[in-house]
């Protein structure tokens, strides 16, 4: 191989490598500048979030939490009914991050998730046993309860080997879908 051939080879690999790096960088910048909007799904439509299949059904607001026992000092609860089916191989809690109110409400505590069938706080949900549940947010007294609610449905992915230990596990990812619900005020019929 002559010196001329060798130089040509070095030049071609250099140009190719630089072009590949530039293209990759440009794509990353473009993706960051134009984030893909989340898909809007209708209420009652199942959403595959990776670990869970979630179907958001309806929302209501009222003074009675799903336990059926009104707290001593009146509070307003915003409640969202949803189904969740665990697709993983292990029992898991329905993460409070699964459903997030969009845009976020300041000073809103995490919701408490109840089972619809007996009004008890939902513990772990096992695979093969889909459950209907109610997420109840204790609404700040300073704010009026919302008329409509936009929820983001979070997602998780399974990594066979994670980047730190090489262990398998589930990792949070960006929301996959949004759902818009009208909030029916249950206050009127509950008061009687």
């Amino acid at each position: 191989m002559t010196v001329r051939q060798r130089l040509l080879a070095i030049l071609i690999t250099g140009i190719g490598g630089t072009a590949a790096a530039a293209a990759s960088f440009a794509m990353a910048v473009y993706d960051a500048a134009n984030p893909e909007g989340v898909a809007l799904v209708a209420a009652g439509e199942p959403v595959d979030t990776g670990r869970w299949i979630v179907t958001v059904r309806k929302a209501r607001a009222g003074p009675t939490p799903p336990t059926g026992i009104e707290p001593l000092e009146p509070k307003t609860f915003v409640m969202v009914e949803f189904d969740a089916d665990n697709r993983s191989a292990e029992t898991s809690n329905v993460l409070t991050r699964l459903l997030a109110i969009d845009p976020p409400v300041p000073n809103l505590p995490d919701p408490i998730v109840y089972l619809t069938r007996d009004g008890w706080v939902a513990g772990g949900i096992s695979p093969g046993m889909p459950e209907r549940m109610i997420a109840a947010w204790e609404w700040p007294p300073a704010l009026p309860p919302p008329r409509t609610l936009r929820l983001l449905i979070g997602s998780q992915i399974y990594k066979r080997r994670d980047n730190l230990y090489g262990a398998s596990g589930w990792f949070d990812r960006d929301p996959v879908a949004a759902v818009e619900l009208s909030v029916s005020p249950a206050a009127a019929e509950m008061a009687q």
Partner: protein
Amino acid sequence: MIGAIKGLAGVLLAAAMLYGMQRTTPLYSDIISPVPVAGRQGERVDTSAFAIGVADVHLAREVMASSFGRTRTYTTSGVWVIIEAAAAAKQESLSLTSAKWLGPNGVRHALSQRFSAMSGMLGSERLEPGIPRPMLMAFEVPESQLSGATLLIARSALTPLAEEAWIEMTDVRAQDIRPAVTLGRGNRSQPWTLEAE
């Protein structure tokens, strides 16, 4: 020419070996997973830290239990599995905190959290060396996962390389499901009472 073919063959062989090694490397979670100690329902299982034996298994559609003075009915979308067992520590005082129902399809069902206030429930009391204590466990399991299951019990779900009792549940049949089981408060030596309907 022969040299080029040899070189190419060497590269392909190396690539195949690396691919094989990459695919067969055990996962970190497998390397540090608990060490199973096999046992069977109705027999004593000895791990180095504790001993456990499963006495009775009750299957029910509903469980009635008193909590804070009121009797509540606990429903499930599957089947309640109530396990009465006895356990003792061996060398030092310890608490057992992890129990899982490994179904025949490989799914691990965690202990139901709904009776965590019940006395005698797994994790509610510390075991002292040489003093066997009764222990209660409750699971919610789909009906298809009843027979052929294994009960996994360990001190903690997270301790790497600790021993875990793998108790083969040989005598659990779907035809033994009862409509309801009532759990009540017991005394010091037997912390709960169980009545099946």
